[in-house]
């Protein structure tokens, strides 16, 4: 009878090979040992790999909570700077003081409050009362007329981020369609809705102090970069003309002179997610489709012919002019000078138009008095937007054939000759034009407290957002990633 493991027996019942020798059982056992260890290791590794996401799920959730906590911490501080608790108001803050609200726009204070312009260089802090739940870094910057707070939460190996876009409160208007400082109902015109006239007191005084500061902060956010580039003598060049999307896409992020996007010959489709600095005027003509681009322009912006802008942000150190058949959808326009929409131009989909009414001038140019109207809508144009004028004296004017929807907000006069569905906040309503025989310098308005056109209620007026700095901060958008 031969001995040895059955599996090593041949069909003739004879032991063959290594198993027929002494020590073969040990070798066989070691062989099985290796197999078993490999199988077990593979199983264990597989379990760990498969469950790693489950384990990181808890860490990731805490990282998200930490990021959220950081964002709320920033909001809490900004809210406190804008509207301190009553006890603090009595002790330290007088809303009539010219310093009121200063910290809200003081970048140094904001930087120490919310971190830095770059999340990687921001100092980490613990938003909780216990230090076992990770740390947070905050980043803050302007995003158009809004303020963006970005919080990054780190917990163990997990990292999450929260971005909050802040505007201003004041989006519940009820059935009121007109808020004005002058007393009494306006004469003429047609008003479908309630009127709140005779605004006065601390709220108005505070606004008059906040608005110039908000405008300064907004200008500083854009103008600093432009001024640095335009003061450099190397950056002066002749106009740059692009006649195709492909050509436009190859442009550097700084155009050292005027930029002309010319779709007069063939249609242009320029769709890119990028930021362009133009050290001159920007003009778009012909059939140009421009999508997703942020333009910061050290001059005027002219959007003409059949130009279509979608999801675009515009900042002009001068004025912004839209005419002909140009169309803007989901566009943010910030004009240091005036904003004009005329001809058959259309501003659609709740755009945001902010005119500061203080265009950049040459050093030698005389200081001009702000124009009575910083936003001017004429011809058969259609405007669906939040329209804000950020200075103390300028207002908004519409002509007879214009149709507007949304919010008109300013501290100056508003002249509505056409139709508006939405809400107006103004110093007063006026009838436009100079009465015959009156010198221009004497009378700008034909009559005060007079409406020539119509104002009616708009059901979704609460969806028109207000820029940051015109009141207590409000969360416009909240992104988690």
């Amino acid at each position, binding site marked *: 009878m031969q*001995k*040895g493991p059955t599996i090593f027996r041949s069909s003739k019942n004879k*032991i063959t090979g290594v198993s*027929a*020798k*002494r*020590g*073969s*059982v*040990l070798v*066989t*056992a*070691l062989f*099985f*040992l290796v197999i*078993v*260890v490999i*199988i*077990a*290791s593979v*199983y*264990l590794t597989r*379990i*760990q790999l*498969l*469950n790693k996401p*489950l*384990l990181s*799920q*808890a860490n*990731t*959730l*805490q990282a998200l*909570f*930490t990021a*959220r*906590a950081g*964002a*709320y*911490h920033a*909001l*809490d*501080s900004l*809210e*406190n700077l804008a*509207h*301190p*608790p009553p006890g603090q108001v009595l002790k330290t803050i007088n809303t009539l003081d010219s310093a009121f609200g200063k910290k809200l726009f003081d970048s140094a204070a904001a930087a120490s409050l919310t971190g830095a312009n770059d999340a990687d260089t921001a100092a980490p802090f*613990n*938003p*909780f*009362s*216990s230090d*076992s*739940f990770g740390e947070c870094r905050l980043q803050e910057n302007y995003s158009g007329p809004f303020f963006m707070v970005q919080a990054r939460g780190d917990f163990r190996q997990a990292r999450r981020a929260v971005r909050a876009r802040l505007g201003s409160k004041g989006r519940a208007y009820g059935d009121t369609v007109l808020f004005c400082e002058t007393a009494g109902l306006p004469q003429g015109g047609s008003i479908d809705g309630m009127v709140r006239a005779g605004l006065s007191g601390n709220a108005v005084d505070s606004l008059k102090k906040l608005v110039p500061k908000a405008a300064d902060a907004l200008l500083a956010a854009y103008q600093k970069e432009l001024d640095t580039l335009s003061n450099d003598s190397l950056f002066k060049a002749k106009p740059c003309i692009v006649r195709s999307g492909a050509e436009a896409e190859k442009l550097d992020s700084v155009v050292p002179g005027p930029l002309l996007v010319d779709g007069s010959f063939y249609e242009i489709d320029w769709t890119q997610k990028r930021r362009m600095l133009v050290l001159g005027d920007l003009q778009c003509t012909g059939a140009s489709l421009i999508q997703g681009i942020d333009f910061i322009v050290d001059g005027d912006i002219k959007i003409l012919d059949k130009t279509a802008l979608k999801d675009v942000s515009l900042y002009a150190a001068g004025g912004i002019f839209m005419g002909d058949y140009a169309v803007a959808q989901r566009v943010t326009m910030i004009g240091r000078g005036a904003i004009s929409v005329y001809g058959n131009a259309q501003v659609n989909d709740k755009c945001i138009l902010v005119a500061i009414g203080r265009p950049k001038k040459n050093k030698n140019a005389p200081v001009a008095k702000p124009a009575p109207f910083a936003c001017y809508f004429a011809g058969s144009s259609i405007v669906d937007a939040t329209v804000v004028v950020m200075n103390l004296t300028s207002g908004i004017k519409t002509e007879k054939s214009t149709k507007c929807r949304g919010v008109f907000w300013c501290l100056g006069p508003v002249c509505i000759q056409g139709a508006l569905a939405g809400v107006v906040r103004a110093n007063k309503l006026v009838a436009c034009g100079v009465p015959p025989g009156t010198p221009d310098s004497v009378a700008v308005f034909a009559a005060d407290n007079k409406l020539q056109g119509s104002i009616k209620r708009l059901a979704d007026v609460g969806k028109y957002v207000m820029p940051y700095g015109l009141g207590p*901060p*409000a*969360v416009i958008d909240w992104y988690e990633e």
Partner: protein
Amino acid sequence: MKNNRGLTIVEVLVAVLVLGAATMGAMAMLRTGDRIKVRQEKLSTAALLAQNDAERIKNLAVNSIVVSDTEYEQTINGLTYSIVRSVVEPESLTENSSGKTSEAQISITPSGSEDTLARFRLIQGYFY
């Protein structure tokens, strides 16, 4: 030639010992793997429950309902978990705070267990 053939009792004993040890080791690894798997699944469930509670807090905040201490149970995959939410008195935020935030801790414990499975800390703001 004859001495090289066949098995000795020593060989068999050593082989049995080696295979036995290997089998026991492998079983231990498999048990460890199973324990890890079960714990991680529980942790995942805890994260899910905490996330649900955080969403609940967020929804309440929309109506300016301030977060408060609470305790409730929830059963998932046949296992019951106790969810304890407790409001934490803010220390770091008392200075320069508008009072529009609440800090809370969510603790998840499997029923019948003394050990807390996971703790999460969050801050909810009321800026709506």
